[in-house]
């Protein structure tokens, strides 16, 4: 049989359709968005306004608006807070799930259930759970004696973001746990046995064997979780819509408001571009690190 140099043409048929859709539906918006950032475009009183090139005016306006910095702060708290707590929780869950040999698959299914339900459902369920008067959380906390009065979780300036974060963590941590569990299970038993012969207790075994072996997985899942959190929108929109008083408005939510509440497409695009640059930067960092890791001989 003849060996062809490349399967170029054949590949086009196989990969073509998928590629076209992905490029068209993902690349095109990104480029369009980039370009639109430099224009003044939106819906005014008389319908669609004409597109007017205004250079970096959108960006200047954004960076000088107080709301941008508030949204940025919220986004950073949201992203970093969620990622850290999710990683810790996922790690604990993965470790203990790994110990339980018997009902393991049952536990896994049950713990993964929050992840497969729609974000909207999560939001609605947790809104009710956090309800001031009728919610079980307030009731439980009061019965435990942890609070004296019912707390308005989603109405309070400091508590709203925390409440949504709890709902988000509840939904997303199973994914991180599953990834960590997979890596955890691939750690060879011999390492633990060798450690045991040296007389380490279980805490030391964790610190000196488990953790180093998991470093890569923890890093990868953290990046993945951070990016997912950065991009998330559903939960915040459903639970508070950005309030109260913009205390839960993240950058993503701001883009939505700019584009579909205020109908300023140019500004919305500009903010989206800023978010995009941030994402590319982080992904680039991750790829660079992986490239370096695979190129050096360990």
């Amino acid at each position, binding site marked *: 049989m003849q060996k062809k140099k490349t399967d170029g043409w054949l*590949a086009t048929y196989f990969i073509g359709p998928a590629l076209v859709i992905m490029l068209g539906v993902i690349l095109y918006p990104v480029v369009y968005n980039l370009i639109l950032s430099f224009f003044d475009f939106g819906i005014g009183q008389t319908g669609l306004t004409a597109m007017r090139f205004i250079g970096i005016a959108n960006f200047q306006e954004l960076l000088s608006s107080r709301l941008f910095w508030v949204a940025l702060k919220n986004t950073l708290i949201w992203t970093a807070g969620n990622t850290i707590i999710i990683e810790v929780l996922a790690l604990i869950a993965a470790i203990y799930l790994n110990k339980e040999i018997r009902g393991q698959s049952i536990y896994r299914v049950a713990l993964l259930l929050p992840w497969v339900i729609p974000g909207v459902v999560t939001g609605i*369920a947790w809104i009710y759970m956090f309800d001031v008067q*009728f919610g*079980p959380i307030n009731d439980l906390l009061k019965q435990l004696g942890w609070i004296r009065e019912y707390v308005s979780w989603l109405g309070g300036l400091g508590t709203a973001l925390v409440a949504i974060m709890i709902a988000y963590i509840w939904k997303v941590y199973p994914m991180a746990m599953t990834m960590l569990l997979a890596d955890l299970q691939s750690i060879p038993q011999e390492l633990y046995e060798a450690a045991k012969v040296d007389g380490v207790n*279980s805490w030391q075994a964790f610190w000196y064997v488990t953790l180093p072996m998991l470093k890569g997985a923890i890093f990868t899942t953290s990046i993945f979780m951070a990016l997912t959190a*950065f991009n998330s929108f559903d939960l915040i929109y*459903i639970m508070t819509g950005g309030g109260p008083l913009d205390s839960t408005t993240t950058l993503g939510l701001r883009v939505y408001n700019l584009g579909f509440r205020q109908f300023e497409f140019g500004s919305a695009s500009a903010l989206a571009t800023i978010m*995009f640059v941030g994402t590319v930067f982080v992904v680039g960092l991750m790829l660079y690190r992986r490239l370096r890791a695979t190129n050096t001989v360990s």
Partner: protein
Amino acid sequence: MRESDRQLSGEPRCTQVISRIWGKITSNIITFLVLLSLLSFSLFPFLWMGITSLKLKKDLYLSPPVWIPSKITFEHYQQIIKIGFGRFTVNSFYVAGVVTIIVVILSTLAAYGFSRLRFVGKEFLLPVCLLGQLMPQSVMFVPFHRMMSSLGLVDTYWSLIIVYTALSLPFSIWLLTGYLKSISYSLDEAAMVDGCSRLQTMIRIIIPTAIPGIISVAFYAFIISWQEFLFALIFINDSRLRTLPLALAAFKGQYEINWGAMMAGAITTTLPTAIFFVVLQRLLIPGLTAGAIKE
């Protein structure tokens, strides 16, 4: 204390055994407690949603809330069907179903190409796929809206189908490519020696072997489409075309205080994916994590 030291210490054997057993029991108890807490944390909201959806109207607005109602009713489910939830469910199934079929076909083809064929730019394209997965959705709002507007696709199912397909493809291709790479090439060679074309090889030999991976992809695409909210919000204005998440959100706006009906709606939206997941989980979890480890 080293094992060998212990043996030499002269400590009676039975004490050693007892303390070891005691240690084991404690650690088992701790494991059980930790898992129980996690389980309660994860499952409690479902319990709450279910109970609420069956509560009598008068039990809904009690402060402190009733944990275990004495009587249950199905009136909330009846109410939401009257509002149109049956229709919304069909809408969601339709969109998710079409997307799943398209994604399975396209991603299998693409994954076969990435795992078996040689061509220019191959190493480059797969990470780009992944980049697409990590794109902030915010970047896509405005362009998509303009694009669908000018194509006249606003308020049609196709706007959703196209977007959901594009959203599910990157991860699906990546997952399936990883999976296919683990299937030995000798299978293909055997088939091709027997006279199969690439396409026939793929259909007859590789696909049957890759079923778990394909099911994972199908499930992933279904979930993404089923639960997607944002683009549905942007594209669909006609209330008859709403998918379940959209209906639920709109419902919340109107009937903010009718928790019974809302929870009934929530349960309805949750059940299909939850059932699929529980039934298929044995196949899915290995498939979902296989891609993760390979990286």
